[in-house]
Structures are given as structure tokens and as C-alpha cells.
């Protein structure tokens, strides 16, 4: 997390990696021999007889570093575990990490560097939609593959991107259905930060509330990113008295929003609140006492009680410190390298086109995901369950609802 501990960690894994390569040398060459480099890599990617190079591209500096830290930690954990278990097609994975610096053009520049100069076989990275939009043309032009971990607004489906987080309908619809049914909600107040993801999410939510649930939207508000004054909006909420506040506020604003909500006397005792934008990462900044009793809708919570997750949490804490927390995106980022491994092994090749081809079959699946079984849909998104967690004072959530596997639908008919 901090500068020093990260350095320590880098040193540690460095040593670990070399030790592992040495130890695993015989098995990996034996396996790699079954997959000659010339055959598994026909497009000149950075694949040698015993290594394959991938890129990690997240913001380590700037405002987004807050959110992206967990994602890149999870990706490194997954890669380390894959390497420990013999690598991929008998090859150890090497990482080139680049800093997007919370700046979209920098993301574009770095992704071009990774694809063009470093010839990486895959890239795990990006967090905001803006950064993804900035790199997308480059991935399509250079024919690279990006594993993108964040839950996002949908309306996109690129051959060169695998979306390991949920698209908007997966996350939103199940949550709204639950709150309508369980809480008997009729009136909704929508609030978000002013950019594409909250706006698209709220658009979908409004249509669902009005057309499907027969409820009423009594307010829809957007705050500029970084704004920290929520008093006026809180008063408007009081005026409209919604059954449910449906929130998608992000970043520093998010902290101010919950602190001021709590101080204004709006707590879970008198108000139902469902948010799309609070994971365990955010709770650290907001403080559990300000969130207690409110609900988040996510596909993953750190408290999930299944063997995969218990092991994942343990491994993550071993690698990144006992007090680290794991949020939805962190888990989705962790899936990236594993999904890539599954695709490469199924294709028997590192070639992007072949990976895309097998990804399109809808047969790439993971039994070992911390969130439970997931399967890649031909539209490059994941089938996943949606869960509702109620926050406790200690910053962990109690899962109060879990849906069936939901089909990803990035271009939802009737919701556009």
C-alpha cells in the first residue's frame, strides 16, 4: 500500500519468482516442449521458450491510484499463483508494469508502448471508462487483448477486450428488483457523480423502475466529480421522502456524501439506501460507522463464505498485508489472468485471434473464482451472480441476497 511496503513486496516477489523459476525449470521445459514457441506464437508476441510477458496498466499515481491499487495487487497475486502452479503452456509469466497516472492520454501512450514495443501477450488494466475508451482504439489497431476489471456502463463490446466486471444491467436490475420486493419500495431518489457511468446506470435504473417495477423516480441528481458539498441534495431528499436512495457517487465525493448523510440524521434506521459504488476499498475512506446498515449491490464481497474465497482472501493478505481489503473490482481483476490462462490453454496458443476465437465459444469457465463459478459469454462479458451486502461497522458486508447467474447484456434492448 505505502511506498515502502510496495518496494519491499516487489523485492520479495522478485526473489520468489526467480526461486520458483529455478525450481520449476524442469517441469516447465518439459511442458513448454509440447508447445514450441513457433507454434504458440505466430504473431511475434513476447513469448520465449520459457517465459511469456504480460502488461499491467493501472494508475499508481494521481487521483485514481486510490481505486486502482487493489486491482493491480490482485493481478499480481493471480500471476504469482499461476507461475507457482507451473505457468502457462509451460512458460513463466513476466510482468511489465506501467503507470497510467490517472491520465487518459497516458493510458493510451502506455498501452501503445506495451503492445507495440514490449509486444506483451495480454494486458490487465484500466479502471475508469475514460481510460478504457482512450486505450480501446489502440488495442483494436494493434490487435492486443485487454482484461478490464471494473463494473461499468456497458454499451461496448470490443473483440479486443474481455470485461471481467459486471456491465450495468447485471448489477442494477437485480438490485432494484430486490429492493422493490424486500423493502416494498415505490419511490426512488437517484444520485450520482456527473459522468458517463452513473448517468448510464441511472438511465437504466429509471427505465426499470418506471416501466418494470411500476415505481416512481422522485429525484435524479448529479454532482461534479470531486464536489464535497451535499447539503442541498440531502435537503431535497428530505423534501421528496423517497423509499430508497439509489446512489452512484465516486471518489472523494463519495466520502463526503456518506459522512454528511449520516450527520444530517439520515441513517439506515430511517432510510433505505442502495449504492452501486461502495466496495470494501471505499469503506476505508468513508468509515464503517457512516455506512452501517446501508446496502451495496456488487457481484463480490470479501465476506463471501465459500472455499475459493477463503483461500483467495488468505493468499491476498499474505501477499499484501493483513489489513488489506478486497473489493469487487479487486476480485474481478484477479479473474483476469486466470481467464486468460484458461483461454490460452484452450486455444493452445498465445495468438490474440485464437484467444478471441475460443473466448467467443462461450466455453471459457472458471470453477475456482472467489465469487463462485463464472463463465465467459460470447459477448466477452462474464456470467455472474449479483449480491446485496449490508455494511457493518467493521467495514465488512453481510450478504443478504444472492441472485442466480445473470447473463451479461451490454446493449440492453429497451433500456437505451
Amino acid at each position, binding site marked *: 500500500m*505505502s511506498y515502502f511496503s510496495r518496494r519491499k513486496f516487489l523485492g520479495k516477489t522478485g526473489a520468489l519468482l526467480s526461486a520458483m523459476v529455478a525450481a520449476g525449470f524442469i517441469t516447465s521445459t518439459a511442458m513448454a516442449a509440447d508447445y514450441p514457441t513457433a507454434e504458440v506464437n505466430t504473431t511475434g508476441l513476447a513469448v520465449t521458450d520459457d517465459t511469456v510477458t504480460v502488461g499491467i496498466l493501472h494508475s499508481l499515481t494521481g487521483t485514481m491510484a486510490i481505486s486502482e491499487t487493489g486491482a493491480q495487487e490482485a493481478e499480481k497475486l493471480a500471476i504469482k499463483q499461476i507461475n507457482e502452479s507451473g505457468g502457462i503452456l509451460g512458460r513463466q509469466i513476466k510482468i511489465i508494469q506501467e503507470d497510467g497516472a490517472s491520465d487518459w492520454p497516458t493510458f493510451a501512450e502506455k498501452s501503445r508502448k506495451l503492445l507495440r514495443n514490449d509486444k506483451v501477450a495480454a494486458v490487465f488494466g484500466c479502471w475508469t471508462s475514460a481510460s478504457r475508451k482512450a486505450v480501446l482504439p489502440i488495442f483494436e489497431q494493434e490487435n492486443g487483448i485487454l482484461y478490464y476489471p471494473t463494473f461499468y456502463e456497458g454499451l461496448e463490446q470490443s473483440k479486443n477486450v474481455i470485461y471481467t466486471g459486471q456491465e450495468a444491467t447485471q448489477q442494477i436490475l437485480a438490485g432494484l428488483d430486490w429492493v422493490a420486493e424486500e423493502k416494498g419500495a415505490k419511490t426512488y431518489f437517484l444520485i450520482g457523480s456527473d459522468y458517463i457511468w452513473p448517468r448510464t446506470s441511472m438511465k437504466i435504473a429509471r427505465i426499470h423502475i418506471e416501466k418494470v417495477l411500476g415505481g416512481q423516480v422522485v429525484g435524479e441528481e448529479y*454532482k461534479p466529480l470531486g464536489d*464535497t458539498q451535499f447539503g442541498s441534495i440531502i435537503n431535497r431528499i428530505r423534501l421528496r*421522502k423517497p423509499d430508497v436512495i439509489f446512489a452512484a457517487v465516486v471518489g472523494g465525493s463519495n466520502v463526503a456524501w456518506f459522512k454528511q448523510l449520516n*450527520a444530517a*440524521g439520515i441513517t439506515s434506521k430511517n432510510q433505505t439506501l442502495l449504492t452501486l459504488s461502495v466496495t470494501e476499498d471505499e469503506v476505508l*475512506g468513508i468509515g464503517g460507522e457512516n455506512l452501517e446498515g446501508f446496502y451495496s449491490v456488487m457481484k463480490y464481497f470479501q465476506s463471501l463464505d465459500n472455499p475459493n474465497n477463503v483461500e483467495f482472501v488468505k493468499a491476498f493478505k499474505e501477499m499484501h498485508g493483513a489489513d488489506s481489503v478486497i473489493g469487487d473490482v479487486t476480485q474481478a481483476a484477479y479473474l483476469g489472468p486466470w481467464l486468460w490462462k484458461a483461454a490460452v490453454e484452450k486455444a493452445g496458443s498465445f495468438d490474440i485471434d485464437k484467444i478471441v476465437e475460443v473466448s467467443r465459444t462461450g466455453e471459457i469457465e472458471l470453477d475456482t473464482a472467489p465469487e463462485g463459478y463464472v463463465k465467459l459469454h460470447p459477448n466477452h462479458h462474464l456470467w455472474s451472480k449479483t449480491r446485496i451486502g449490508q455494511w457493518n461497522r467493521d467495514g465488512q458486508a453481510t450478504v443478504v441476497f444472492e441472485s442466480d447467474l445473470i447473463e451479461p447484456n451490454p446493449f440492453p434492448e429497451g433500456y437505451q
Partner: protein
Amino acid sequence: MGDFSLQELTSILAMQGFVGISLFSVLLLMALGLAIIFGQMGVINMAHGEFMAMGAYTTYLLSVMTQTYFPELMNYYFLIAIVASFIVAGSFGYLTEYVLIRHLYKRPLDTLLATWGLSLIMQQSFRSFFGAREVSPTLPDWLMGSWMPTDSIFIPINGMFVLGLTGFVTLGVFLLMYRSAWGLNVRATTQNRVMSGAVGINTKRVDRLTFALGCGIAGIAGAAFTTIASTGPTSGSLYIVDTFMVVVFGGAASLFGTIASAFTIAQAQSILEFFISSSMAKVLTLLTLIIILMIRPEGLFSSKVRK
């Protein structure tokens, strides 16, 4: 809509009024330090937000330490944290003046740039030492929740606390600047630096202490804002532009101007915000300010002084 009673409407009105006052106190607390420095030396401190964040992190550290070593004192640590924030940010400000600012007095625009460089370094230091994620000091229970003068009026306690603290700090600054011997020195130096030096005022020391005082107040603001907003490496930069506007709009070297300016901006923003979207409210407020400044470049509240 439409189905609420007169009493509810009055309550909302009262609470909305408090929103404006609360924003006013936030703006004023941030602007005070900046205004003192700007009024005294014509220097705009671009790292002001980072001095604020320094206060916020000091509060966070104290909260963690108290929780670990003296959990029974959790109710009181916050008061100590405010003082500590003042001292930490103030000392660092003192150091900054000594190392950086004093070499640049004749070049105000360069000071602006140098303090920007400083703010980059400070932000990255926060990130390196505290991590990129936001932190949240545990607040004492008495700062949570709201005060209810009637059944339907909720006044946030943290908002009142910030308001009270702002009043206290403003009063302190007033007494210091206008009722103390030291304040007389400061004002004399502002009026005529050469003459003040000639009559035996140590103008360098006055500058250094003024800068430290301004930064220290930013530290207090940081401590106070942990109750209402986030603490992260870049938290300070969220406030900085609004704060500049308060200072510029209020006119230099006038405590009253700063107060009046903060009040006007806060009321305009919060009233507009109630009717139109926040983004547009912000755009409109800033735009109006710029237009007024074009008409009255000396700031709205400074009196005409002969040249």
C-alpha cells in the same frame, strides 16, 4: 410532490439555510489562511490545499494512535488533533517560508509556480507514506448525528462544529491582527515594508510567522474537514480553486472582505444548487464572480484607496 405541510417546508428552508452557512464556514476556514498570506505578501500559496491535507492526516494519525494506546480518550482526542494540526502545518509552513518563499518575494508569479511544485511533492509524500487510498479518522461520538430543535429540523453536529471552529479561528485572527502588538507589526509591514524595517520591525520574522500562521490555519481546516469530507493525498486540491476565488473576490488584505466574500459565494452556490444541477450551479457561480471581478477588479469588498 406537493403533499407536504407548511411546517415541513419551513424546516427544509431552515435546513437549506444552514447548508449555505455550513458551506460558508468551510470556505472561510480555508480562505482565512490564504488571505492572510496573500494580504501580507501578495503571495498565492498553491500548496495551501496540501497544508490542509497535512492537518487532516495529522488528525488521522492521532485518531489511530489514540485508538491503539488510549482508547478511553477517544472522546477528547479530536480537540488535541486540532491543536496538533495547527502546530504541524504551521511548523512546516515556517520551514517552507525559510527554505522557499523568502527567496521569491520580489517575484509573486514565481512563488505561485514554486508552491505548485511544492504541492506536487507534498501530494506524492502523502501517497507514499499513507497510501493512495483514502483514510478516515474515527470520529468521537459527540461529533456524529444531528441536533433536532424541532421534530423535522436536523442540523448536523459536525456542520455546527465546523461553524463554531471557524468563528473561533476568525475571532482569533481578528484579535491577533487588530488587537495585538504583533498584528500591528504585520499590518505596518503590509502598509510599508521599508518604513517598518526602518522603525525596527523585523519584517523577515513577521513574514515567516505570517506564512506559518496561514499554513497553520489551513491545518486546522484540514482537521475540521475530516468530519465532513474525505482525507486522501489529493483532498486538498478539491477546495483550492474555490478558496482562491474567495480571496480574490474579497479583495486583498481585508478580513471583512474575506468573510463577506465567503458568505456571498456560499449563499449563491447553495441557493442555485437547490434549483439547478450542481455542475451548472458551480459554472454559474464562478462565471458571475469573474464577471463581477471584471467590473470591479479590486474585489467586491475593498474600499477605494487613493493611489
